[in-house]
């Protein structure tokens, strides 16, 4: 504790001034560091706005939102975001149809049924699955799940949204179940005991008391799960194909917004070309969707924390 020799306030001197200066200096340094996160956000917003502005000026918002073909690299380019949005929506919907039911059932089971010791093992294991790099999930989708699906669905193309969506759902299950379980465990035991006293079994208690009480927390986990599915890149880039395709048929290949950004980045694009600007326009749409999800998720989570 060499630096913190206490000097009485009445003793002025160089040492005291030095310490006060050091205190102010470090306060300023730490404050600047805290602002760095704002700088990152500002950088994201500025880049997306500035780089996509010429694109929107050239294409027009109406054509961007209503044209049904997305071919910005062609000699006669078309700039309709709908095919990319369709790809994103279909893969997200498949992923959610796996992740939300499975994640919820697992969360209820872990929170209300599982023996505590088993839960203590399973929870960290679930969280470990969240650490698997997404490109590894992409490998699973393309080289394990797709061949398996091709045995069930003859004629399924090598690249398809179904396989990518299913693996994406599997990736999101631990995320949803872990956050939902946290929310349900935070529901006071008193409420459960009240339900038991009225003759409820665990299932009725979970469905009619715990789940509604934790609903905003569970909702937050759903919304954040949606944001992850919409923003997931490598699984769809590897397994769903890179061709924009306006379809809702999950057995077809189609590019998502994220896959398009990757596909363009893999080539060599001249800075400032319309193709280069198009990935920022696509990125701006992606950022807007995920920002809405995140804001909704955080609002739900805050409401849950206040209610508990």
């Amino acid at each position, binding site marked *: 504790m060499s630096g*913190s020799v206490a000097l009485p306030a009445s003793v002025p001197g160089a040492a005291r001034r030095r310490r006060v200066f*050091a*205190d102010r200096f*470090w*306060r300023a340094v*730490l404050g600047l*560091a805290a*602002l*760095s*996160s*704002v700088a*990152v*956000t500002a*950088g*994201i917003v500025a*880049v*997306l706005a500035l*780089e996509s502005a010429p694109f929107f000026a050239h294409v027009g918002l109406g054509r961007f939102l209503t044209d049904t073909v997305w071919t910005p690299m062609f000699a006669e380019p078309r700039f309709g975001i709908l095919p990319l949005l369709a790809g994103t929506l279909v893969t997200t919907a498949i992923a959610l149809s796996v992740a939300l039911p499975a994640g919820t*059932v*697992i969360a*209820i*089971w872990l929170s209300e049924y*599982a023996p505590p010791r088993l839960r203590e093992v399973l929870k960290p294991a679930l969280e470990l*699955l969240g650490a*698997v*790099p997404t*490109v590894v999930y*992409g*490998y*699973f989708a*393309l*080289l*394990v799940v797709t061949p398996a699906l091709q045995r069930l669905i003859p004629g399924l193309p090598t690249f398809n949204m179904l396989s990518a969506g299913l693996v994406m759902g*599997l990736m999101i299950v*631990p995320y949803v179940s872990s956050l939902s379980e946290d929310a349900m465990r935070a529901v006071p035991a008193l409420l459960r005991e009240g339900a038991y006293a009225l*003759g*409820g*079994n*665990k*299932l*009725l208690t979970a469905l009619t008391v715990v789940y509604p009480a934790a609903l905003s927390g569970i909702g937050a986990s759903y919304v954040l799960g949606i*944001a992850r599915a919409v*923003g997931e*890149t*490598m699984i769809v*880039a*590897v397994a769903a194909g890179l061709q924009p395709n306006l379809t809702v048929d999950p057995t077809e290949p189609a590019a998502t917004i*994220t896959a398009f*950004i*990757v596909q363009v*980045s*893999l080539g060599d694009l001249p800075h400032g070309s319309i193709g280069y600007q198009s*990935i*920022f326009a696509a*990125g701006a749409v*992606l*950022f807007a969707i*995920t920002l809405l999800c*995140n804001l909704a*998720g955080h609002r739900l989570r805050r409401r849950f924390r206040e209610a508990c």
Partner: protein
Amino acid sequence: MRSLQQTIALRRRQDRVFHVLGALCTAAGVLVFGALLADLLWHGFARIDWAFVTSYPSRIAERAGILAALQGSLAVMVVTAAVAVPLGVAAGVYLEEYAPKNRLTAIIEINIANLAGVPSVIYGLMALGVLVYVFGLGPTVLTAGLTLAALILPVVIVATREALRAIPRSIREASHALGATQWETVRWHLLPYSLGGIATGVILGLSRAIGETAPLVTIGALAYVAFPLPGPIRAEPPFLSFAWLDARFTVLPIQMFNWVSRPDQAFHANAAATGVVLLGLTLGMNAVAILVRSRMRKRIQW
């Protein structure tokens, strides 16, 4: 009209059915993951040997290796850690120990929560626009490190804040009562005591960064690198060289992405082997983080 006994029996049955259903669901999830990982290990392990780790990529699958990707991943991680750790810890300390409760603080906090949910590919676009073109850094190791540092900044900040929050108030009060300034309290008490929690967060953040593919593809990382990164040491003074910061590079996940995407099946074994290495690194880092956390918890008892 059901009798009471029937109702009780029915509810017991409901409970048993759901208990089994939930257990099956959880087991199914674990089994699917287990099967996928087993498949990866099965295909990957056979391909891993000394030559695979010490060779550059090749057009012939059997001769290709991951040396360039390993060098690239290591170099990028060094930059990421060097930037994200001081910045994230400092920001966390400020928000937890200094920040007044005002609008600016609230904005910074909402901002950090939102940053954590921004898709990683967006960070790549940001880096492409700002670092590659405005700052003119090009698609180099330095750009990649800075990109991933921005990406894991929220993780480090949140971990630092949680570690600080676990320290009892009385420590701060005792330090102030003895005449220490706020900075001296942070420097000599709060930082040393929260080191374990911070280290855990940093390792988890880096384990996420090492597996990131999309943002580095976006800034223009190469998929095929057949030359070594410039070494960090040279013969003449000052003996250190930073030429590697300016070099073009590839990393393990991009190497894996490249090999997965090839139609030639021979490369899929390489992809699996790279996946095993990548998985070993990330899960190993997570295991270390869990270990650090539990050891710290045992050592410090408030």
